[in-house]
C-alpha cells in the first residue's frame, strides 16, 4: 500500500469526518466491528456456491452455434471461423469495439497537460544501449510479425487485434528509446491515425449499406477484400491507440495549486 505521507494530503483526509453524519457514521461504526465485511464475505461465498452449482448444472455437451457458423463459412469471405464471426457475422460488435478503443484514447488525451517526452529513459542512462540494440533488432522483426498476423488472420490464429498489439509494442520501444517524440506528433496526424480504422470501417459499412440495403452486409464476391481492407486499417489504428494510451498519459507532477482545486467543489452530503 503506497500510503502518501506528504503534508499536502492532510486536508483531504481531515475533510471526511466533517461531512460524515448519518449514513457515513453508521458506515464507520460498521467498519469498526467488521460486521459489513463479514457479511460481504458471506455474500461472496454464497455467490461462489451458486456459481458452482450453475456450472455443474450446465448442459455437459453442446456445439453452440458451431454448425451455423460452419454452414455459412463459404459466403463469409474468410477461412477462419473466428475472423468470420468477428468481422462478418457479428461485425457490428467489432465496429462498436473499435469505437470503444478510440474513446479510451480520447479520454486519455483529455487528461494530458503539457508536452513532455516520456521520462522513462533519458539519454545517457545505463541500459540505453540495450534498448538501442533492441530497437535495431526487434523493430523489423515486430513489423514482420504484425504483417504475418494480419495475413494469417484469414485462415489461422491471428488478426487485426493481435497485429495491432504487436505494432503497439514496437511503438512502446520507440517511445521508451526516445525515438518517437509522441508529443511532437502534429495534432491532425494524431487524430487521423487514431480514428483511421473507425473511419474506414464506417465508410465500408455505409457503402455496402447503400449497395445491399442492409447494414454491414458485404456483397458476396467482395467480402474477402473488404474484410482485409478493414483489418489493415483497424490494425494500424489499434496500434496508434495503444501507443497513445501508453505515452499520452499526463506527466505526474504534483502542483500546489492542485490541492486547492480539490477543495473547489464539494462532495454531496449524506
Amino acid at each position, binding site marked *: *500500500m503506497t500510503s502518501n505521507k506528504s503534508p499536502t494530503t492532510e486536508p483531504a483526509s481531515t475533510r471526511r469526518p466533517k461531512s460524515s453524519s448519518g449514513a457515513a457514521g453508521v458506515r464507520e461504526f460498521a467498519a469498526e466491528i467488521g460486521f459489513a465485511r463479514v457479511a460481504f464475505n458471506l455474500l461472496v461465498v454464497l455467490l461462489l456456491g451458486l456459481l458452482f452449482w450453475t456450472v455443474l448444472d450446465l448442459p455437459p455437451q453442446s456445439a453452440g452455434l458451431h454448425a451455423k457458423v460452419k454452414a455459412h463459412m463459404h459466403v463469409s469471405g474468410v477461412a477462419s471461423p473466428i475472423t468470420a464471426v468477428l468481422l462478418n457475422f457479428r461485425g457490428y460488435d467489432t465496429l462498436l469495439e473499435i469505437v470503444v478503443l478510440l474513446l479510451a484514447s480520447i479520454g486519455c488525451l483529455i487528461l494530458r497537460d503539457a508536452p513532455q517526452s516520456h521520462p522513462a529513459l533519458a539519454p545517457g542512462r545505463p541500459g540505453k544501449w540495450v534498448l538501442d540494440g533492441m530497437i535495431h533488432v526487434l523493430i523489423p522483426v515486430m513489423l514482420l510479425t504484425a504483417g504475418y498476423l494480419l495475413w494469417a488472420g484469414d485462415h489461422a490464429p491471428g488478426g487485426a*487485434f493481435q497485429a495491432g498489439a504487436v505494432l503497439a509494442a514496437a511503438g512502446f520501444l520507440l517511445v521508451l528509446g526516445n525515438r518517437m517524440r509522441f508529443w511532437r506528433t502534429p495534432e491532425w496526424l494524431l487524430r487521423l491515425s487514431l480514428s483511421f480504422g473507425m473511419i474506414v470501417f464506417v465508410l465500408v459499412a455505409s457503402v455496402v449499406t447503400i449497395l445491399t440495403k442492409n447494414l454491414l452486409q458485404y456483397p458476396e464476391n467482395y467480402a474477402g477484400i473488404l474484410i482485409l481492407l478493414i483489418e489493415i486499417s483497424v490494425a494500424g489504428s489499434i496500434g496508434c491507440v495503444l501507443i497513445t494510451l501508453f505515452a499520452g498519459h499526463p506527466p505526474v507532477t504534483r502542483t500546489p495549486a492542485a490541492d486547492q482545486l480539490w477543495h473547489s467543489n464539494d462532495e454531496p452530503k449524506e
Partner: protein
Amino acid sequence: MTALTWIFDGLLTAAMVYLAWSLLSERDLFKAVVLFIAFGLLMALAWVRLRAPDIALAEAAISAGLSGVLLLDAVGAIRSPNPVPEDTSSDSG
C-alpha cells in the same frame, strides 16, 4: 495420456487460482503487478489448453503485455512524484 493431461490441467488451474489470490492480497503493488503479468501468461497457457490459440495470442500480447506495461508505469508514477527509470524490463510483450 489422460492422466497426464488431468495432472497438467489441475496444476495449471491451481497455479492460476494461487497466483490470483496472492496478487490480490500482495501488499507491495509492484510485486502484485509482476504477479499479474505471470498470471496473464498462465492464462495464455489455459487458452491453448482450451484450443483457443487466437485468444492465447491476444491474451499474451494485449492483456499480459500491454496491461502489464501500463500497470507498471502507473505504479511507478504514483510511487514517487518524479518517475525514476526503472520500469523498462517490461517491454517484452
